[in-house]
């Protein structure tokens, strides 16, 4: 007969074991709940990456449904348009990370739905093994035309739909071929301002004369001049402190009103207006057009570098009026400025992703155009727009003319420290069913009218049909 003492001792030992097990249980609960997220997201944890590698990445399509990026049977990624589309598609590689739409729309392309991971096994019901397709606003023809137009020269082209903000083309040159970027990564990543820099949204350039439509808008809105006033251009403008502003090529425009001054890109007139506007009003107008803002999301645009308003001398004010000084802007921003005049003073927020489409063909996300800024009034926009039409019909931008299409524009030939002037052309075109705006820069290309405006013509022709 086993005595009660043994049984009591067994119960004590058993309780001790159960307490140990209870402690372990509590610890496991702690691991699986409190600690779970930090463990799951630990950079050394390859499970997330492995789960994503199991998913067949969706395709990137252009506005007409043509393939811009898709997976081959072996899992590698192919980019049919190669380097001409690289600024849009970006790249995606295990070792090099991702950029462009590949990076921004990564979750959509993988079909990862938000916050389903906490549903556990049920999340697998929503997780397909084929990611979603992402349909962009890009028109491949315009993109190709712009890329061909740059013809290997350094520069950038941005084409937008003025009424929606849809990005129709975004080109940066020099470019890279995303098909074999991993093999060339070493060389590419070493270049400071090389192919990996998306000049369309990250490149900072002095706008030169392309800023003049905005200065004209500011001068009229702030009543520092009117349409009737006649400026006398003698070829040079004394801006004080012994500095002068000259016309390019030593031209003399004589007596010009504001419309004529813009058409002929008269530096004397706009230098004068810059000085008349002064710090405060210039700053206000740059802010109205959003030059102090960047963009996030799918279009990572840098904010502009504005002159130090409040401390500017009259020389700097005059230089700002003709787009020089320390003012630096991105091509995307100049396209947005052009959009304000083409779209009744309203700038729509630019976007690239039009739709996200499931493998089954259901559209799960459809981007609606949204307003970004009201830059100016519809009347003022229409007025400046008509000034800009003159630039193309009888001014410096005649190379952008397309028969049967109303084209507006403004040329720019921006002096810069890097050497030869940058050639700019910004403007808009009224096509059958939409109003497009564009900004083109050819780095160190020389004259905007002869180097950049013909590219606009090519882009317009590619979109005409």
């Amino acid at each position, binding site marked *: *007969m*086993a*005595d009660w*003492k*043994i*049984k*009591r*001792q*067994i*119960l*004590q*030992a*058993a309780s*001790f*074991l*159960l307490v*140990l*097990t209870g*402690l*372990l*249980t509590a*610890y*496991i*609960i702690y*691991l*699986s*709940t409190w*600690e*779970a*997220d*930090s*463990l*799951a997201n*630990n950079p*050394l*944890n*390859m*499970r*997330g990456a*492995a*789960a994503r590698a*199991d998913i067949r990445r969706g395709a990137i399509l252009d506005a007409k449904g043509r393939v811009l990026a898709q997976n081959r049977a072996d899992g590698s990624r192919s980019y049919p348009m190669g380097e001409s589309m690289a600024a849009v598609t970006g790249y995606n590689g295990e070792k090099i990370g991702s950029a462009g739409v590949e990076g921004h729309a990564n979750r959509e392309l993988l079909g990862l739905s938000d916050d389903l*991971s*906490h*549903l*556990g*096994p*049920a*999340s*697998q019901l929503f997780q397909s*093994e084929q990611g979603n397709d992402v349909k962009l606003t890009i028109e491949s023809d315009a993109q190709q035309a712009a890329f061909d137009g740059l013809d290997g020269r350094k520069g950038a082209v941005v084409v937008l739909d003025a009424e929606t903000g849809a990005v129709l083309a975004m080109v940066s040159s020099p470019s890279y071929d995303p098909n074999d970027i991993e093999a060339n990564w070493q060389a590419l990543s070493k270049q400071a301002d090389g192919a990996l820099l998306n000049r369309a949204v990250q490149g900072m350039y002095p706008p030169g004369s392309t800023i003049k439509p905005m200065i004209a808008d500011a001068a009229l809105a702030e009543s520092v001049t009117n349409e009737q006033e006649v400026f006398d251009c003698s070829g040079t403008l004394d801006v004080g402190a012994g500095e002068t502003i000259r016309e390019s090529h030593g031209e003399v425009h004589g007596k010009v009103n504001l419309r004529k001054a813009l058409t002929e890109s008269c530096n004397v007139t706009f230098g004068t207006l810059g000085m008349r506007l002064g710090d405060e009003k210039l700053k206000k107008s740059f802010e109205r057009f959003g030059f102090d803002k960047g963009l996030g999301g799918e279009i990572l645009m840098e904010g502009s570098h504005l002159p130090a308003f409040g401390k500017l001398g009259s020389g700097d004010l005059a230089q700002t009026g003709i787009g020089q000084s320390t003012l630096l802007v991105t091509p995307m921003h100049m396209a947005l400025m052009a959009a304000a005049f083409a779209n009744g003073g309203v700038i729509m927020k630019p976007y690239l992703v039009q739709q996200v489409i499931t493998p089954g063909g259901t559209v799960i996300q459809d981007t609606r155009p949204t307003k970004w800024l009201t830059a100016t009034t519809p009347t003022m926009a229409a007025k400046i727009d008509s000034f800009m039409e003159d630039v193309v019909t009888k001014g410096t931008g005649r190379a952008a003319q397309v028969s049967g299409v109303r084209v507006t524009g403004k040329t720019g030939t921006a002096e810069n420290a890097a050497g030869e002037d940058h050639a700019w052309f910004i403007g808009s075109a009224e096509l059958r069913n939409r109003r497009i705006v564009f900004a083109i820069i050819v780095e160190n290309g020389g004259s905007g009218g002869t180097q950049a405006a013909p590219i606009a013509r090519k882009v317009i022709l590619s979109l005409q049909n």
Partner: protein
Amino acid sequence: MKNWGLMAAPLGIVLFGMSVLYLKMNPGGSKLTAEVLQGPLNYVPWLAAVILLALFIQAVIIKRREDTFLFPIVLTLCSVGIVEIARLKPALLVRQLQWLCVAMIVMILVLRFWGRIRRMLGYPYLLGVACIFLLGLPLLFGTEIGGSKNWLVLGPISIQPSEFGKILIVFFLAAYLSDHRRVLTLPAHRIFLLQLPPLRFIAPLICIWGMAVLMFVVEKDLGSALLFFGMAVLMTYMATGSKSYVFLALAFIGVAAAASYAAFGHVRVRFDIWLNPWQDPNGMAYQVVQSLFAFGTGGIWGTGFGYGHPGFIPEVHTDFIFAAIAEEMGLIATMMLMTCYVLFFWRGIKTALSCRKEKEVLLAAGCCSLMLLQAFIIIAGVTKFLPLTGITLPFISYGGSSMVSSFVLLGLLISLSKEQEHG
């Protein structure tokens, strides 16, 4: 005969496990293809054999009026184990089913010949010598597999003597302690605050402790060492109720641990990994760190069976199977398994409390404690609760020796549970 309904349980559980498996075999990105499993014809006969044996055993248990809960609990654990092995190492599925058959047959033998087996309790010293002999075998003829030199390779099969040694040690402790219970509690010597009997009585205990340390240092088998040592301490307390032994044992292990930390590199490595696995997460601590990631990734609900990546953990189908379960089935499943072990333990303790003979009380308590302690040590190891040790998760991990010895323990417990009914 309302208990006959319980017979459906083992069948249902195994069938459920296999149906989950079948779901996974359907197309849809699964890595578990028919080719890997070499077709259902290969494993279905073995599965059928397992189910038939399970039904037979449960029928025997019911007929003999023994504890009807222990076996279904174990089958639950086995089903989870089989399903996990089919998921993790499909090539080993048939092997595991075969081992399960062997284990169940051995268990039937234990149930059948219980009358003779219980007589072994009368020969404690023979048991002790046999145990030392068994554990000593690998020291002489051992082969090192997976970092531990505790394997005997006999032709096509390798066995782990320590898996069977643990049964003998429970027998030995039960027999020896109940024989010498009264002597051991005699306060013959007083050393500081400890009350100790003459040395010759505690010599066998010290012998076991020393063996455990030896196993660790020479065979690098920390898991078994901890298990043997823990069992010795637990059962000594159960039999004597003397805290002096516990203190003595803790002091002993403390000194031994400090000495081996200072003297042996592999001990130091294990301990340092436990203290700070993030120092070398891709090197020495890789296994533990990956195991922790598995727990974190699984979270509460798991990633879903077949949707995790337990393959990152080396040896995931044996020692780390618990981490794989945590990753794919989440906290829910790990809690269920813990509950199964605790329920098993509790039924075992209940059995022990209802036994009449002192030796059998200790044997039953020892058997079920051994199971829980083994599960505790390995689960604590994979979760970094304790330093990592290499032992199997009873009834779940892949491994023949472990499966057979666990079923022997189960057979012993069930046989002991008979007594309560017949008095």
